[in-house]
């Protein structure tokens, strides 16, 4: 086990180095530079352009810029945003709780609905429910997030008036400073009556939108994994012993069927963080996705590089943890 862990952790290091290199190069391949983007129609004199490029170190050879950047990263320095002049890590840490809160809620929704629905579909295989679940899951999987988000806003918020349109809390009636960055917690800490409920209401639509694809994936995975397990000998034995169908499915089949589902849930972290870019834009959610999009538009190299590195890093670490958890709960891998 220890050897596996060490090997797996060691493998992430080259991934990080490759990621750093690719990000650095990709960001610079985007046409335009941060200063020219800023100047608009009025342009900038060649002298001032040269001066600013020099101040930002953009006039040095790319390899030298890369080495400096890599050196900074090793020392935990992600650089300073060209636009806001704030340390990139600080900006990321300010915004990340919002993304994390939304992603966790979306994941919770996906698991809480996806797993039971997948189980039901497997148990009732070939029935109307199975077909319906699979059709909805396929639709959910292919749903364009932007369209889905706007549709829900128009329908649920505007026409039915059930949820707020966007943002994280009612700005007219509540005001409190962020403490943890998680609005649900901060609203509780604020001690303002109704603030928590307002924050929870604001989470509903974005969680549904962001959770739709993972929900579909989890439901399909649970179904297929359950089908496989349900045909195993030990399940037949359990049935033969006269156990109730609920015990057979819930205790014997589901526990084993969930092993691959856990992996899928881990893999969805990437989807959630990537999907958050659009969801955050539509719902005015102040997370890292929205920040990255703006960094691209402004060619804010340090913010863009740092943001991609940090998000990718989180995805890599989560996947590593999932792999380790998978090994812990599935001895076949460990010994394989």
């Amino acid at each position: 086990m220890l050897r596996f862990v060490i090997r797996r952790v060691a493998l992430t290091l080259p991934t990080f180095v490759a990621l750093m290199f690719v990000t650095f190069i990709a960001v610079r391949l985007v046409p335009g530079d941060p200063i020219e983007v800023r100047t608009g129609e009025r342009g900038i004199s060649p002298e001032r352009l040269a001066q600013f490029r020099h101040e930002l170190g953009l006039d040095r050879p790319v390899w030298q810029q890369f080495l400096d950047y890599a050196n900074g990263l090793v020392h935990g320095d992600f650089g300073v945003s060209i636009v806001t002049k704030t340390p990139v890590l600080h900006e990321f840490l300010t915004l990340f709780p919002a993304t994390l809160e939304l992603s966790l809620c979306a994941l919770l929704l996906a698991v809480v609905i996806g797993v039971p629905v997948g189980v039901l579909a497997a148990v009732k295989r070939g029935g109307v429910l199975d077909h319906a679940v699979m059709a909805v899951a396929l639709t959910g999987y292919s749903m364009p997030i932007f369209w889905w988000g706007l549709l829900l806003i128009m329908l649920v918020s505007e026409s039915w008036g059930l949820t707020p349109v966007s943002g994280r809390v009612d700005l007219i009636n509540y005001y409190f400073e962020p403490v943890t960055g998680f609005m649900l917690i901060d609203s509780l800490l604020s001690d303002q009556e109704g603030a928590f409920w307002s924050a929870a209401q604001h989470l509903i639509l974005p969680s549904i939108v962001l959770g739709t694809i993972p929900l579909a994936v989890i439901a399909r995975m649970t179904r297929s994994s359950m089908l496989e397990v349900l045909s195993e000998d030990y399940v037949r034995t359990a049935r033969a012993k006269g156990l109730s169908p609920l015990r057979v499915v819930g205790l014997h089949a589901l526990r084993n069927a969930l092993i691959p589902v856990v992996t899928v849930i881990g893999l969805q972290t990437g989807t959630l963080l990537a999907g958050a870019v659009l969801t955050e834009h539509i719902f005015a959610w102040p997370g890292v996705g929205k920040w990255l999009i703006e960094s691209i538009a402004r060619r804010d190299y340090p913010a863009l590089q740092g943001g991609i590195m940090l998000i990718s890093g989180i995805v890599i670490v989560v996947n590593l943890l999932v792999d380790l958890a998978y090994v812990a709960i599935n001895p076949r891998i460990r010994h394989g």
Partner: protein
Amino acid sequence: MSFLKAKFAAAAILSVLAVPAYANTLVYCSEGSPENFTPALNTTGTSFDAARPVYNQLVEFERGTTKVVPGLAESWTVSPDGKEIVFKLRKGVKFHSGVNGFTPTRDFNADDVLFSFERQWKPDNPYFKVTGGAYDYFNDMSMPDLLKSIDKVDDYTVKFTLNEPNAPMLANLAMDFGTIHSKEYADFLLKKGTPEQFDQIPVGTGPFSFVAYQKDAVIRYKAFPAYYEGKAKIDNLVFAITPDPTARYAKVKKGECHVMIAPNPADITAMKTDPAINLLSQPGLNIAYWAFNVQKPPFDKKEVRQAFNMAIDKAAIIKDVYQGAGQAAINPIPPTIWSYNTAVKDYAYDPEKAKKMLADAGVTTPLDIDLWWMPVQRPYNPNAKRIAEMMQADLAKIGVNAKLVSYEWGEYRKRMQQGEHITGQLGWTGDNGDPDNFFFLLGCPAARQGGQNLAKWCNKEFDDLINKARVSSDLAERTKLYEQAQVIVKEEAPWFTIAHSVVYEPIRKEVVDYKVSPFGRHEFYGVELK
């Protein structure tokens, strides 16, 4: 455990310090986060809007107009040679207290004026390099060339000495980069060792004081009771940062916002009939144009340029591309700017006549040209590619094959300024409401390689007129000169003037006395909620 305790304690303190939310809160749905709160450092409307509630300038634009009126200077006099402007400053103007513990001990005075400009101008100012120190507008408006000195005559008198007379100077000073900051606050932060806070936690003399900013989420302000023109009619002002225009509109409809920026053109029709919404509109202070490079044949001939002006169906472009959010441009300045010449008539769409004029000018068809279109959406041009395609189709009718060309936005501007194009689209958004801020685009100095005159057209008669107008402080005389200049531009046709955008601003019915700014500003002092 102790970390959690500290967090809870902090929350308890903050909830005590928190500003109570009043019903009298106006929420403005803005589209993005400011870069910081010091206008001199910024170039975007989003950043200017965010700083504006907090600050004043020496002179200001009257809300909803381009007229320059007194601000922190209650009056001014210009010397007969136009080289000295002496400002008499308002007395008893208070600065806000900062949310970082700064408490002002004195009123606004001349030291604040000197500091605000010297930060942008003098490299030895301790704040010159703070937050990057780009000062694009100060430089773009040629302030370092125009200014000889700024002197404190006494605590309430400041003298600006210019290197040459310059009539648009007053309008320049009303721009956001002319914002007056507190020198006392700057010194306080310098002593504390946190000068960068100066640009993050704004302290000004404006109608609203800064309360809090959460990146990409919200900016909060509260009415400043001691504001020199009287307390604002709303108690709290909130900027709800909402990047998507459809979501912004939904928020206005639901009452989550009272005013919103930049509606989706597709929503305009619905907004017009929405009972909860007043849709305000005004022509934008901008122009989209198609420049003919007069240094390249056949555009060196006036008749060819005129023929091209007649070959394009402008009305179809306005209808198809602007979808009601634009008006045909006749002159190089928008009609909201003083000196706009209403007597100038546009070229009528007449492909037959255009064809004949080309033949008369000795142009043999088919003629191959290039037609550049910019790769980005701009306030004055929602879809340059579509316009280029429509022009291409119109030109085909007179025997001209237009090849469509584009580059990355920065590269595009650079190449156009170098004069690499034969014809190309661009535009301009006015900064200060002075006609000179538009006419310089056609002046001889800007026609140099790398300059902003994209027609590379240099007409001595036109240039003399605008130079004369720039140094005159007689408004009637300037108006006359600019009117003549517009006649020359139409006759010489270095541009095909495309359109001025129409700016729409949906506000909820309960918002009273909101005015659409020709500059695209969003200002809330004087606004009331019913």
